[in-house]
């Protein structure tokens, strides 16, 4: 009994002690909350010092590239990094037009079958070797062999050395879009040293050496890719404009950090752990814009979201069915669900980028974004649709694809289409969509290209398998048109035909990418991605 009393007394003491601790805990939490709510005031003297630029620029990217051998891959992550390491003979300016970079001049023969590239002299690779025609010939011929677009559009063309600083491209047909294809962003024709290419295996080069403003230094798998300022860089002449012109580097190093979680990228750029964060989530856009220490960009350079029809197998081979569905689609609802913010999408029937100075056209707008369910029902009936099951593919790995597919499925149901939505992870979708027997409809993101002939909507090999005599004939005519104006007019007619009659895709709309950077960076330019030359970071 005495023992029990003693224990009981101890407990009372314990209770008093516990109360004190509890009160202390509450006080501590209140202090935390007050400190947390206080604004970050600038410290005295901050910003008054003379600006000195340099240091390490930390960029948070959402996925690790599979390789930096850009002849092999179309991965946009690989391109974001590689644009800083490699350069090309010609590249895109900010209006998406081709201009020389490593070439000094480009001359086209009268018959249009030969292009002569005079190379800039004294351009050095990161290994110290001077770039000559041998390197350019080896790089360009490998690109023609490896790049799916070059293979399709420049097949049988060859690059030959004329002298150490002159390279000649010989074409089989006098097509006019050669330079635009060469200036394309995806799987771009990077110039690498010939000996590096000679030693490359089937899985790509083992060293990443180019002529760009940054040289590859280190790759810590799943952590970061480290680039260093290339001191012997030879910039092209002219004002910086997109990927062309001079490129002055103000930072010492760049680290591309692999940060797969979007909330971590967001917290990282808010706290200054990263200077730039790519691929920010759409639903954080307003929060990012309203964060005082951030600059947030939403350039319309990513691409479009589309409904792809399987034209090789199944009931969607019937163009009347495709037209029926196209008539019933309300693109505004789909895009709003996809990106969740009116500021981040544009409704436009353009298959090309609406920003493209050469090719943008709204031809065919009369059948775009109609959202006419009754008309769709009527057309479906006339096309002989009899409630057959329609398989709709989408990936759950990209929110905007998934959200589009869910709304689309609802719209299809209202039209009376018996659609079955099948969601897969990205690698599974890549695999399954290659079999035309598997699916009828697919939601896909379509990246921008530099010429209509590179569009996936006209590609006979890409899933969806466009196969139409009139389209291929029109594309050939566009490619050999005498003038740009004539080519654009023909493209306008073709886009109208594609939207009104063939309907390879139904385009929902164009969407922006969201990129945030700390406000400590000056002169940051966004062109598809954050360009890391010209940007200044105070040390």
């Amino acid at each position, binding site marked *: 009994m005495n023992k029990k009393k003693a224990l009981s007394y101890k407990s009372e003491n*314990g209770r008093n002690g*516990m109360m004190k601790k509890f009160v202390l805990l509450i006080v501590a939490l209140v202090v935390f909350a007050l400190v947390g709510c206080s604004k970050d005031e600038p410290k005295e003297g901050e910003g008054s010092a003379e600006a000195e630029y340099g240091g390490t620029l930390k960029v948070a990217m959402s996925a690790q590239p599979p390789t930096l051998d850009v002849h092999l891959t179309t991965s946009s992550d690989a391109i974001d990094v590689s644009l800083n390491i490699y350069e090309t003979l010609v590249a895109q300016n900010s209006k998406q037009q081709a201009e020389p970079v490593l070439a000094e001049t480009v001359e086209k023969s009268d018959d249009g079958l030969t292009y002569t590239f005079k190379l800039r002299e004294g351009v050095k690779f990161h290994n110290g070797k001077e770039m000559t025609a041998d390197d350019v010939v080896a790089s360009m011929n490998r690109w023609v062999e*490896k790049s799916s677009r070059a293979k399709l559009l420049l097949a049988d063309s060859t690059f030959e050395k004329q002298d150490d600083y002159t390279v000649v491209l010989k074409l089989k047909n006098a097509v006019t879009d050669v330079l635009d294809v060469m200036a394309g962003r*995806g799987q771009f024709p990077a110039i690498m040293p010939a000996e590096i290419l000679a030693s490359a295996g089937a*899985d790509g080069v083992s060293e990443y050496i180019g002529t760009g403003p940054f040289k590859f230094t280190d790759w810590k*798998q799943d952590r970061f890719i480290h680039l260093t300022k290339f001191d012997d860089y030879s910039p092209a002449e002219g004002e910086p404009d997109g990927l062309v012109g001079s490129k002055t580097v103000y930072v010492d190093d760049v680290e591309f950090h692999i940060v797969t979680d979007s909330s971590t990228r967001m917290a*990282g750029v808010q706290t200054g*752990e990263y200077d730039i964060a790519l691929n920010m989530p759409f639903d954080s856009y307003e929060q990012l814009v309203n964060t005082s220490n951030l600059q947030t960009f939403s350039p319309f350079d990513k691409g479009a979201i589309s409904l792809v029809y399987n034209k090789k197998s199944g009931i969607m081979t019937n163009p009347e069915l495709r037209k029926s569905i196209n008539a019933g689609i309300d693109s505004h609802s789909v895009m709003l669900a996809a990106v969740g913010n009116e500021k981040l999408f544009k409704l436009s029937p353009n298959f090309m980028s609406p920003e493209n100075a050469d090719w943008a056209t709204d031809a065919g707008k009369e059948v775009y974004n109609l959202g006419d369910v009754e008309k769709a029902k009527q057309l479906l009936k006339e096309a002989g649709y009899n409630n057959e099951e329609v398989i709709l593919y989408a990936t759950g790995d990209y929110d905007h694809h998934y959200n589009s597919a869910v709304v689309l499925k609802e719209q299809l149901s209202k039209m009376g289409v018996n659609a079955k939505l099948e969601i897969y992870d990205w690698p*599974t979708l*890549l695999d399954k969509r290659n079999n035309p027997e598997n699916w009828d409809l697919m939601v896909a993101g379509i990246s921008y290209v530099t010429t209509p002939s590179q569009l996936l909507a006209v590609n006979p090999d890409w899933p969806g398998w466009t196969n139409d005599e009139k389209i291929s004939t029109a594309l050939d005519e566009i490619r050999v048109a005498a003038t740009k104006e004539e080519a654009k007019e023909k493209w306008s007619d073709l886009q109208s035909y594609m939207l009104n009659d063939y309907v390879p895709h139904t385009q929902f709309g164009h969407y922006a990418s969201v990129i945030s950077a700390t406000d400590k960076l000056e002169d940051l330019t966004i062109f598809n991605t954050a360009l890391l030359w010209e940007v200044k970071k105070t040390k």
Partner: protein
Amino acid sequence: MKMYFLKRLLSLIPVLFIVSIVIFMIIHLTPGDPASLVLGEEATEEQIQALRANMGLDLPIVTQYFHWIGNALQGDLGTSYFMRQPVTEAIVSHLAPTISVAIIAGTISLLISIPIGILAATRRGTNTDRTVMGISLIGMSVPSFLLGLFLILLFGVKLRWLPVAGYQPITDGFLGHIKYLILPSIALGSMHAALIARMTRSSLLEVLNMNYIKTARSKGVHEYLIITRHTLRNAFLPILTVIGQTFGSLIAGAVVTETIFNIPGIGQLIINSVERRDYAVIQGVVLFVTCTYVLINLIVDLLYGVIDPRVRLNKK
């Protein structure tokens, strides 16, 4: 004892063999392949097939398995299709962050859980007990990723005391190394602390009700000695089992926590490899994790004997 140790090690062989077959079949029968992901979404079927052949993925699955298991028996787990480095190298480079997090999280959880578990047991039925049990219930219920996000928001974004994400190897400075791991370790450790605290309390209560404890008290033994010398040691076996299990799960990689704090550990490696269909790495990591679990369980079993002489294995 030695025989027992050897037997346990030998028992690993059938376990690893079965695991290797199951994991090999599951990942190879799952749609998608590394070639499509390396080449990107616009690659042609012809290009994909050429790279598949180069990777050896066009061979019959049984042939692929025997190639792989043959090399694995010689210590070669293959080469990552995506990272283009030996799998063993990839595992080693991703293991260091995981071990660091496991040690710090484990230490935090033990430092919190054992004392508060003892406190709750010795103050059974009081407000202290109820508070400890309440907090531990919350600790067990709140997922580590949610706690991680709160910690990032408070200590990273608001207070700016600690970095929100990333990893710095210990070779680049000890303080920097620790600074990056504090938040993820708290996020992980708190859940485990809650579990161990509850286990400590219940295990201790069971022993505290035994007659020999009552005898000790009636003899006037000091309460401190009763707890440390007579109770804790006898109550420690189930606690040790839980500690072993939680440490094993930490070494296996805390997938979500590593993703949120962007720590390039084993958890991230396996999740990335699944997304990339990097078969060689998935197989290698699963085998590694299996071995780790079995070995940690073996160590825990051997420690039983150290703590409690009644379960020493060489006694007949």
